[in-house]
């Protein structure tokens, strides 16, 4: 009786802490979302209240959809994120497989070299990257962003995936070799499905910084054709006047795709995080 009482208090406490954290984490996001549905005056008069019949207004969304090629920005962001994600997962998994599976001279050194990028932010190389992109005539193309983001995402991807791949039994791969499967088939059919939770983890950690990035779009692809949504939303932030309705509406819209991607990956993500704990 006493034990069950104590565990009840404990679980209540845990839920209280987690609930509190959730509220703190979600508060700014929800604030943005509710204010995007309000008129400009209402935003400033009572920023914390929900929109009612009086203050409800879609003016922000109307501005966003009218002004500029907002749908185009959206597509740019989405294609840059998805293509980079694809390359990060593909090359990251391949490199991780090579590092974890094959013994060759300089294996550890290569692994360390590839993981170095986790500690050194890629933005330090911005000037050099800009020069290189200019030389390659890739400035103002989506490819410049995709290349940079792939490079940015690879170190963490390789680090996490090679750790996971080391845990896959050698026997399984060897059974495949005896049955005559090629190394590629072993990689795609046997190993990749088994590290799916790790792939989802990497996908989430890679995707969110790419989607939110303002720095590289501003420097490498500020042209109208190649603007991403974070850059596009800046249009409404003026030096003197800021169209808050539009900014909030644009940000709210920008949350939706990552949210969808996150939901897709999250089941696997949870499996990945708990896989060590519950066996």
């Amino acid at each position, binding site marked *: 009786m006493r034990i069950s009482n104590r565990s009840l208090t404990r679980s209540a406490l845990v839920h209280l802490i987690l609930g509190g954290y959730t509220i703190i984490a979600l508060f700014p996001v929800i604030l943005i979302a509710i204010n995007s549905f309000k008129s400009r005056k209402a935003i400033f008069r009572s920023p914390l209240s929900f929109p009612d019949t009086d203050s409800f207004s879609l003016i922000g969304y109307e501005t966003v959809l009218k002004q500029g090629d907002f749908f185009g920005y959206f597509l740019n962001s989405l294609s840059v994120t998805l293509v980079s994600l694809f390359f990060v997962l593909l090359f990251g998994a391949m490199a991780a497989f090579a590092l974890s599976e094959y013994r060759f001279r300089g294996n550890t050194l290569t692994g360390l070299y590839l993981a170095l990028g986790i500690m050194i932010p890629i933005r330090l190389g911005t000037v050099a990257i800009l020069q290189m992109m200019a030389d390659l005539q890739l400035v103002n193309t989506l490819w410049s962003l995709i290349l940079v983001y792939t490079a940015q995402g690879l170190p963490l991807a390789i680090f996490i995936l090679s750790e996971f791949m080391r845990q896959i039994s050698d026997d399984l791969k060897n*059974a495949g070799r*005896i049955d005559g499967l090629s190394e590629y088939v072993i990689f795609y059919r046997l190993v990749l499905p088994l590290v799916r939770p790790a792939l989802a983890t990497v996908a989430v950690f890679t995707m969110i910084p790419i989607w939110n990035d303002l720095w590289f779009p501003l420097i490498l692809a500020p042209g109208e054709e190649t603007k991403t949504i974070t850059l596009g939303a800046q249009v409404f932030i003026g030096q003197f006047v800021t169209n808050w309705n539009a900014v909030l509406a644009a940000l709210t819209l920008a949350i939706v795709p990552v949210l969808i991607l996150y939901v897709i990956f999250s089941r696997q993500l949870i499996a990945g995080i708990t896989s060590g704990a519950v066996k």
Partner: protein
Amino acid sequence: MGSLKLQGISKSFGPVEVLKDINLEVETGEFLVFVGPSGCGKSTLLRIIAGLEDQSAGQVLIAEDAVDHLPPSKRGIAMVFQSYALYPHLTARGNMSLGLKQAGAGKDSIAQQVQLAADMLSLETLLERKPSELSGGQRQRVAIGRAIVREPTLFLFDEPLSNLDAALRVNTRIEIAKLHRTLKSTMVYVTHDQTEAMTLADKIVVLNEGRIEQVGHPLELYRRPANRFVAGFIGSPKMNFVSGEAAAAFGAAEIGIRPEHIALSRDNGTWRGVVSHAEHLGSDTFVYIEVEDIGLLTVRTLGETICQPGEDFYLTPNTEALHRFDASGVSIES
């Protein structure tokens, strides 16, 4: 055909030499067992035979052909692993047919082969199940089925039973022995369980620290171990070793006596000691006796010998069955 020959196989991982000049010949249809303590290089040797690992020196010949340049799938071998290693995304049937599919066999012949193997291992009802829906014993049978389907000239087993519980282990062991009798193929089997080695093998290879200590028929190893290591490794409970004066009396640096070759008596005998522990198994009794100047000796007696810790006993070794070793541990032939 079907025989295996190892010529001067060595293997180093960096500076560590795990296999040292292994020479061995296996006849067609023979059941060969590698035994040895953990880490002595059994699995490494098996992986070299399979082609999953490159040897540092030496040659592997399967059916008289040097196979060193061939990948595992072209060596005419099949392997069963300790961890079953079934493909998790395929059914039992898929697992068993994948190898043949890769080799380009026709649909009908694959189905026929799988059916044959399934009959042999009574797997018919399990064919459409995924590995996750099978018990450990069933998984290992599917893994054995996957090996049979390939119709290899050489079967390789790497501790196939060590993940199974005791009862299943006995059943599967019998099944493997039967399989060997029906298929009449050459089998190489790795284990560190000496019951498995003794019961299955036509020929046992005792490995220690990457070297072959002795090769021979199980009973030959039991009766005439070449050295102290083999003497201590084969036989359960372990052989008793006695050195010092008692050994010198027999003209050896050390003598070995199996627990079943010591007679117990309450009245008289060669040595005198105190019972420190007794294990009653019903069919026989293991008595551990502390003997002055010699140490703890294990004695095996038939039936239910009643004795209590602290009791005095006289022990008499059967001098006919004594093993004598010189200072370097090599057996002295009498």
